[in-house]
């Protein structure tokens, strides 16, 4: 009896090992789809457009990295409310008339399938003098006055993307504005005409048009072939929430356009993939990718660069908070980074700069 039980246990052990290994082999080969289901692909149909052209009005958020970082440190660190940080606006050699502030803004020209066109202004920069010059250079000021721009989409509340709103509202006070959920009271007050002297910030032109707050976790259609997606990202300087734009270009695929992408470019692409129809093919990317904005590097960014090609990106426009170092590494990794022209105070041709354009479609 003892021998029989021992023999049974031996057989059990041998069979158990064989069964375990056999199932491991089967699950990674012939039965792979049973055990590891293919990732869900989105089914939200945002429609289709003919083409998207993005003009970089300004990608120079500030002129001196060290100064902007020092401003934040002197105020108490990265968690301090941006509306009470005394940003350096004089005595900066590289600055615009001594002011370190610049700003980020892009003009998106969307051509629909029926040939009609829409214009989206993504973000409005920071320093109103600098933004006035940039808007004049690209004709945005005239477009605003003539009400040719359909909507101002604010990607997030950060100083370099939003504090220059006076430059927009002085030309078109009733422009429709879309913000992501998370804007603070100060942001809404600024739109209404408030001023924040400590931060050298004001708006003398109260917004009189429609204002829409977009909830996170959903795809929000904007125009045929165009939508926004908002994220509940907690960001430095007491900012919450960011939204990005996604376009579906006919015969090409989806295009992701961001302001700063604080939620992370991989998170943004994954969200598009899981929510938007056609998300298995991301044709293009444009905007700030927030990888090494202060030209610092972390080994995790190497993983990020290695992950990007798996989305099938064919056209990669980036600038601003992406970092020149990131652009160099992406180019070395064979990613299709579109080069710029280094004009109008953009420093290098490594990526799209002020006044540069990128077309999808």
């Amino acid at each position, binding site marked *: 009896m003892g021998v029989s039980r021992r*023999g049974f246990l031996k*057989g059990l*052990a*041998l069979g158990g090992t064989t069964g375990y290994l056999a*199932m491991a082999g089967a699950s990674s080969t012939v039965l792979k789809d049973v*055990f590891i289901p293919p990732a869900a692909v989105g089914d939200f149909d945002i429609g289709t457009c003919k083409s998207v052209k993005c003009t970089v009005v300004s990608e120079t958020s500030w002129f001196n990295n060290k100064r902007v970082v020092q401003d934040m440190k002197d105020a108490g660190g990265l968690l301090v409310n941006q509306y009470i940080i005394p940003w350096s606006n004089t005595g900066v050699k590289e600055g615009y008339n001594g002011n370190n502030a610049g700003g980020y803004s892009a003009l998106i020209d969307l051509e629909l399938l029926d040939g009609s066109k829409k214009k989206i202004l993504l973000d409005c920069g920071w320093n109103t003098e600098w933004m006035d010059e940039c808007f004049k250079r690209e004709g945005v000021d005239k477009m605003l006055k003539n009400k040719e721009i359909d909507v101002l989409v604010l990607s997030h509340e950060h100083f370099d993307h939003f504090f220059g709103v006076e430059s927009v509202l002085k030309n078109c006070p009733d422009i429709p504005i879309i913000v992501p959920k998370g804007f603070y009271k100060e942001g809404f007050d600024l739109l209404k005409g408030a001023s924040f002297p400590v931060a050298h910030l004001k708006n003398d032109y109260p917004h009189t048009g429609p204002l829409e707050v977009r909830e996170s976790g959903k795809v929000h259609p904007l125009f045929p072939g165009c939508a926004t997606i908002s994220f509940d990202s907690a960001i430095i300087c007491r900012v919450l929430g960011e939204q990005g734009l996604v376009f579906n270009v006919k015969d090409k695929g989806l295009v992701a356009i961001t302001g700063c992408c604080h939620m992370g470019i991989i998170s943004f692409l994954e969200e598009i993939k899981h929510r938007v129809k056609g998300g298995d093919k991301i044709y293009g990317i444009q905007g700030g990718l927030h990888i090494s904005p202060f030209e610092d590097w972390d080994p995790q960014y190497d993983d990020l660069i290695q992950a990007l090609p798996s989305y099938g990106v064919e056209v990669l426009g980036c600038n601003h908070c992406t970092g020149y170092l990131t652009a160099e590494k992406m180019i070395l990794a064979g990613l299709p980074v579109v080069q710029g022209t280094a004009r109008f105070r953009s420093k290098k041709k490594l990526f799209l700069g002020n006044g540069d354009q990128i077309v999808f479609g």
Partner: protein
Amino acid sequence: MDENKALEAKKSWMDINWPGFFAGLVLGAGLFYITIRIISALMFSRTAA
């Protein structure tokens, strides 16, 4: 005698208890199946930490 004992030992070493083996086969395969189901559920969960 010793030779017979050696032959007996060798024979019992080579014998497989087939009921035990098949029971183990099912158990082992089942154990792996449960493991991979748990892991894939966690991997592809959008809410799990």
